Each structure stands twice: as C-alpha cells, then as structure tokens.
C-alpha cells in the first residue's frame, strides 16, 4: 500500500511526462515498499543472519500463529456469510419462481420476453449429469431438463438452442431426447406445435415437421427449433482433431502453414461443431465452463444466478433479461 504522498508525487511526475523525478528519486520513492533484497553470500551478513535467526524465529513463529488465527476467523465468518447468502438466495429464488411461473403456457413465457430490447438468436445451456443418482434417474432427469429448456426456448421464439453436457451421455440417446422434446412441445403448444430438429456434431439430424396449424404463414410463432447436443469432445478435442487433419494435409503438401488463419479455423469449427452462441446459461452456483467449446465462447454473454442449484425457469428468464440489459420486473 503506497502512502498518499508517494502517490501524489508519482502522479505529478507522470503529468509532467516523467520530467520531474530522476530515476534515482523514483527509486527513493519506492524504497520503503520493496521486499528485502536477496541475501548476499558474504560471510559477515551470513553471521549476522545466524544471530538474528533465533530471535526472529520466535517472532516469525508468533506471527505465523497470529496469521493462522486470523485465517481461521476470517474463514469462519466467510462460510457463515456464504450460508446466509445461499439461504437468502434460495428464498428469493423460490418467491420469484412462484411469482414468475410459466404455467407451461407459451403465451405467458412470450409475454415475459416480448418487450425485451433484444433476444438471443442462439441460446446455449450447460447441464450436468447427476452421476450419483441411481439407475437411469440421472439420465431421465437430464432429458427432462433438456426438454423443458427446449419448450421455453420455443415459447420465447429463440430458434436455436445448444445443450452442453460434459460426459456426452445425451449424445447416446438422441432418439429418446427427440421423443421427449416433441412430447413436451406438444404439451406446451397443443395444435400449434413447432417442428424440432435435434442433432449432435457428426451425427445425422432427427427432425419433426411442425404441425399444420403452426406451419401456416399467418402464424407468427416459432416454426422450427433446432437443437444441438454438445459434449466435452466438441471442445478441445475438436481443435486437436482439426490440428491433426491440418498437420496431415501439410505433410502431404496440400496446404502450407501460412494458409492456417483465424478465418479457416473458425470456418472449420463452426461447420463441424457450431457457431458462436449469443447467450450461455449456467444453472450451477458458480461460473465454471467445465470444458465448454473454447473457440465458440469468445463473445458469448455468460449468465448465471448466484447460488442457484438446478434447472429452473428463473435462470432462463433472468438470463434473457440480463442479455437485453433490462431490470427484473416484479409485475407482469
């Protein structure tokens, strides 16, 4: 921590284009804040250090004990604070989820978002598989969550959704996910159900056409929702695979290394995986990307609700609000 006087001198010097102070004076300004210089190996210094060692040893020990004590106290209060904060957020989230419930009605969801300044065209979510859950319950829950989010997206008229799940479990059950999503959409929309296409990188897409009523031109709702399922192997591994391919091509003399540009890599990765999402929703309590494709996340707005645990409409709604730069409204 610099003394205000030193800061003032520094700023005055800076204003004058560093003409005021000579390098020596600047050093003098800094001297009191510097760590002690590395010990010189000369005998005398060594001897004195030895003498000091015992006295300093006790002092250092006491200082350490004091710091340890402060550390424990701080962490005690901090974990208390976090527990209170978590409890508080849980209550607030519960209240607001009662207040802002979607009631499985597309119109209500659309009402929530229709006045927003902008909506993401491509929404991305990170889901986690509960590996401790017994039997297939973890998978069933995951599919249920994915279908819920798909239904909210379709209601908010967001045409593109990508679902990231680290382990890639969802990828193995594409038909099941697809079935669950179409059922969910039918339950939400009834006769106006939009079509849904679901795919994973390097997997063929499974499509359903929109119902007749939904595909009519005068219908202004969403006609088709495209869903992309991603996993950790679409992140770093896809970049590694691209590098392998490029290395192979370069070995055969098909490309020169100067051909490898940002545009080329971007084109390849968005072709084989996906483009950049506009908004990324995290349903966990902290901001951690758990292996989400790094290339695509460049300018993506990242949204999470503090201390939230699990998928719910609140996170979705607040993420959209934040994306539009809007405030939470407590009345509809």
């Amino acid at each position: 921590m610099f003394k205000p006087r030193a800061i003032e001198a520094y700023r005055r010097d800076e204003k004058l284009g560093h003409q005021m102070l000579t390098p020596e004076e600047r050093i003098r300004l800094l001297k009191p804040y510097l760590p002690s210089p590395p010990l010189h190996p000369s005998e005398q210094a060594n001897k004195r250090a030895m003498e000091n060692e015992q006295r300093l040893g006790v002092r250092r020990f006491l200082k350490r004990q004091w710091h340890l004590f402060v550390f424990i106290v701080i962490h005690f209060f901090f974990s208390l604070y976090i527990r209170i904060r978590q409890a508080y957020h849980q209550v607030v989230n519960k209240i607001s989820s009662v207040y802002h419930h979607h009631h499985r009605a597309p119109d209500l969801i659309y009402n929530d978002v229709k006045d927003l300044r902008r909506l993401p065209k491509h929404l991305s979510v990170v889901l986690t598989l509960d590996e401790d859950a017994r039997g297939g319950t973890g998978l069933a829950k995951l599919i249920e969550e994915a279908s819920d989010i798909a239904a909210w997206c379709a209601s908010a008229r967001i045409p593109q959704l990508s679902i990231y799940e680290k382990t890639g479990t969802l990828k193995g059950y594409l038909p099941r996910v697809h079935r669950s999503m179409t059922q969910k959409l039918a339950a939400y929309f009834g006769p106006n159900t939009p079509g849904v296409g679901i795919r994973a990188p390097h997997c063929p897409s499974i499509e359903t056409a929109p119902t007749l009523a939904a595909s009519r031109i005068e219908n202004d709702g969403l006609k088709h929702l495209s869903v992309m399922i991603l996993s950790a192997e679409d992140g770093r591994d896809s970049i590694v695979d691209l590098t392998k391919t490029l290395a192979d091509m370069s070995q055969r003399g098909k490309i020169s290394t100067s051909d490898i540009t940002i545009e080329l890599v971007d084109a390849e990765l968005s072709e084989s995986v996906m483009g950049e999402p506009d908004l990324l929703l995290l349903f966990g309590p902290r901001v951690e990307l758990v292996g989400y494709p790094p290339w695509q996340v460049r300018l993506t707005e990242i949204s999470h609700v503090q201390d939230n645990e699990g998928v719910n409409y609140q996170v979705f709604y607040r993420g959209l609000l934040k994306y539009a730069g809007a405030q939470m409204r407590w009345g509809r």
Partner: protein
Amino acid sequence: MSDLYLSRIRNWFIRSPPAEWIINGLRETLIGALKQGPIPRHVAFVMDGNRRYARSHKIETIEGHHLGFEALARVLEICYKCGVEVVTVYAFSIENFNRPKYEVDGLMQLAKVKLEQLIQHGELLERYGASVRVLGERDLLSDDVLEVIDRAVSTTKNNKKCILNICFPYTSREEMTTAIRSTVEEYSKSSAPKSTPFSQTRITQKIMSKQGDKSENSESGDASSHTPTESDDNEDSMSSTTTLYPDSPSRVSKDGSSNNVTIYPNAENITAETIDKHMYTADCPPLDIFVRTSGVERLSDFMLWQCHQDTQMFFLKCFWPEFDLWHFIPVLLEWQWRQKKKAMEEVGSRQRVKTA
C-alpha cells in the same frame, strides 16, 4: 456542499499517520492470513472499465488508463505478497486498434514509458524475482515499442520466482490459431533420424521394394493403396480425408525419386497437451482464477483455451481503476472456500467408491 466536506474530512482522516498505520497493518495481516490457505498459482485479470471510470469521473480517457495502471501496480503487489506465481493481464486486444487513434497512441505511449522505467530499475524486479513477458501478435506493434518490449523481457528473463504476462495486442483466437499453426509446422518438419541401430530409410525401402509397383501409386498422393488405420479417437475428425499412415509415415517426395524419403512425425500423436505447449502460456501453471471487472460477463476473446475447463470466474461490478485488496479478498476467500469444498467432495466420493 456537505458531501464535499465529508469526503474531505474522510480523506484527511485516511491520510493521517495513525489511520495509515492501521490500514497498512490490516492489509499486511489480511494478506498474511490468506497465505495460510491454498493460494492460486495463476490468476488472470481483464482490466475492464478504465474508460467508463474516466467518463463517470469526468476525466480524460487516457487519464483513466493511467489510473488503471496504478490499480495494476496495486494488484501485482497484492498477488506478489500472497505468493501467486503467474499473473496474466489483458492490456490490449487486437480489436482495440479500432479505437480512436489518440487513445491507441496514448496506450502505446503508456506501455512504452512504463516498460522503459522498468528497464531503468531492472534491479528492483530482481528483488521481486519477477519476469515480464509480453504475449500477443508482435507484428501489429511499431518498432520502437517492440524494441522496448524486447529489452524489458530480456532484462528480466532470469528472474524465476514469479511471472507477469502482459497480453498486448492479444486475442485468444489468434493465440489458438498460432498454436495450431506452429503445431502443424512442428509436425511438418521432417524429424532428424533417431539414433537407433535400425535405419528407417532402409526398412521403408525394403517395404517399398516388396510392394513393388504399388509404391508408384503413392506418388499421386492416392491413399487407397494404404490401409487406413482404425483410429479410436477419430469420430470427431474434421474432414473425411483423415486417413493417416501411422505405420509408414514416410512419403515419397513429389519429384518421384524413391530414395529421397522424408520422415514426418505421426500426426495422430497430437494431443491437447501438444497444442498446449504451443500456447503463449505454455510453461505457466493452469489458470485458477479469472477476474473481470466492470460487470461485463463475457470472456471477450481472452484466455479461452486456458479458462474453459475448471477455472473459476469472477465478474465484479467495480471498474478496474477502483480495484483493490478489498475487492480481491472476497474473490480469494470464495476460491479458497470452494477449494476446500471440492477437496471434501473428492474425499466423500472416494469413500463412496470404497464402500460400494
């Protein structure tokens, strides 16, 4: 009016020697205390909000950047005292070249002057044991700035205790592309023959002569004569032409003389670690904490490769020039708390595995 008086009285109070002494003591104690827990090894900062800070305080933009530099010095001091090994800061994005020219020039000037001062006081950094590195696209910088950067980097390169990475014209996509390019370059260089008792060339020639006329096919670059390997991690490959030759990585060069055999390292051996080694941050420990100030919740093309796994991200509301120990402590505490929780969860899951 009363507000003004209050702030003056507060300033006078903070500046009074006893208050100063207490605050300093408090800072030292807090840092010393935090050091008792786990300490992140690598922290990255996006120094965002200098311009907005300047606008909200009605000062010149460049003035805001100067205050931002002071905040950086403060943060570095804190990190140094805590024992953080590597600090990476986002000083200038390639995109920032689109800003008004006087601002870009001002920033360049700021960087140049600061680095020059650093060189003048080279022995100070020795005391810290800190080395400075500048990461980014060097070609975009003017020669005079480059020269200063090179001198600063070379005067401090022998300091081993901690590292300051300054990302100066940097974007993460550029970094990743460069890493891919240099990996490809490495793998397209014919490797020097290894000192084994067997000559690879001889073996290849023998295989070639056995295959007889088949070898002529390979001149045309046709892959069909070779059996493509069943590669287990190939589901994700980008293109359909990824048939590789792990068994016979040699290829007949274009001029057709079969004696002139170039041996390439096997491209299938490229892993994430290989690319990692070609990143600007190759020898730095993994990124533990990512801090972005000014309330924007985006990565903005910074450290994408490094932070997309288990880095904890913190988006803070304050502007960068305001950033101080008081903003950093909650971040550090929360990180330590989660570290503790993670360790406990790991122990728990291990026990569950044991009982199962």
